[in-house]
């Protein structure tokens, strides 16, 4: 009963898939965080003039990621860009992360009391000095748990890129299932890999969080 045709090579194939998952997560998080910090700061500091930006980013949060992938993939062919599926996935996930990261950064910046900023200005700091040395350190502490949550969420959402033909962890396991016909075993292994990846990120995040709060 416990015999299996699951081989070492299959596991390697799945780990390669997991590597693609990690790569996608990291690239999209980098794109999304950079853009999200800029947009979030803009949203917090110029709330009136950036309302259209909020509407645009809201679209990315209200449309299923799967549909975004398909749409962007089709758009790519229409416009005639010769991008790989991986690049498309990175761009779509990057935009998706941007939309969420903007809100996280915005709430972080808004959590810094206005009086504190006025105090720093009256101590002679310039506008940018105040932003960099007073607002950023305080806002990042507030925004960090949300950012970690976003990272975990994105890592799980990368499973959807299989639809546009990228072999990541779940697609890799599906390929193996098709060959050896033991879905439960293979999927359990895939689940375990996802679980471990999530757990490591969550633990690291929690540790970093407590470490940051030590010096406050």
């Amino acid at each position: 009963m416990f015999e299996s045709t699951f081989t070492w090579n299959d596991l390697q194939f799945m780990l390669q898939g997991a590597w693609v998952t990690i790569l996608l997560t990291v690239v999209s998080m980098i794109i999304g965080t950079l853009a999200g910090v800029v947009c979030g700061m803009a949203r917090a500091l110029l709330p009136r003039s950036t309302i259209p930006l909020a509407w645009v980013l809201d679209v990315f949060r209200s449309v299923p990621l799967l549909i975004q992938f398909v749409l962007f993939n089709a758009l790519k062919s229409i416009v005639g860009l010769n991008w790989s599926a991986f690049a498309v996935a990175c761009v779509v996930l990057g935009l998706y992360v941007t939309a969420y990261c903007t809100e996280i950064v915005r709430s972080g910046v808004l959590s810094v009391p206005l009086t504190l900023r006025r105090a720093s200005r009256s101590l002679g700091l310039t506008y940018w000095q105040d932003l960099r040395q007073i607002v950023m350190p305080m806002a990042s502490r507030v925004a960090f748990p949300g950012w970690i949550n976003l990272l975990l969420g994105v890592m799980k959402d990368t499973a959807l890129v299989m639809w546009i033909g990228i072999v990541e962890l779940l697609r890799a396991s599906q390929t193996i299932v098709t060959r050896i016909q033991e879905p439960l075993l293979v999927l359990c292994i895939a689940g375990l890999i996802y679980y471990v990846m999530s757990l490591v990120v969550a633990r690291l995040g929690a540790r970093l969080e407590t470490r940051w709060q030590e010096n406050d």
Partner: protein
Amino acid sequence: MFDYNFHWRAAFKALPDMLNGAWVTFETAALSMILGVTIALFLVFMRQGKNRLFRGFAATWISIARNTPSLFQVYILYFGLGSFGLHISSWAALLAGITINNAGYLAENFRGGLKAVPDTQLRAARSLGMSAPQAYRLIVIPQLLRIVFYPLTNQMVWAVLMTSMGVIVGLNNDLTGVTQDYNVKTFRTFEFFAIAAVLYYLIAKLIVAVARLLSWRLFRY
């Protein structure tokens, strides 16, 4: 560079079918939310209870639901259960997968909400002569609802967006499934999926608007 003719007319002709699909999507999401809330409440009380077995069960459920992709959960229900000779339809697999996911996330929300309702409230209710179920029903749950209302709305929107995964396990009567059907027939991918995206956006906004109205009516006191 740009030599593509958009054919919107064919896509608009499919609109009635897609609206039917949108209704299926909404129904599935609503059903999974109702089931999810019920299970989440059970999980929360199990987790607070004394029984080791129940506590372990709830903790396992929550951590698996939160730490694996929802697509994976649908997959394991659709393909994995086949190993036990259980073959469920793709709709059932989708519904069960989203419900498991919802229950896991909502249980955490409810736990946070319960913490925010002071213990003294429950004790005061009990000392006024209410039975435990009465105290929970009349005192704790209404206050809890107020705190978890916003996360609940959020989760409902999430549930709607998650139903789009059904197409990957072969569901063909929800919004994405219908769209994919037309896409396969006509290869007008962009047009059909653009309309689907608009419909999803409208559903999400509708849910948020209704929730806002509801919260305005419910939490007036």
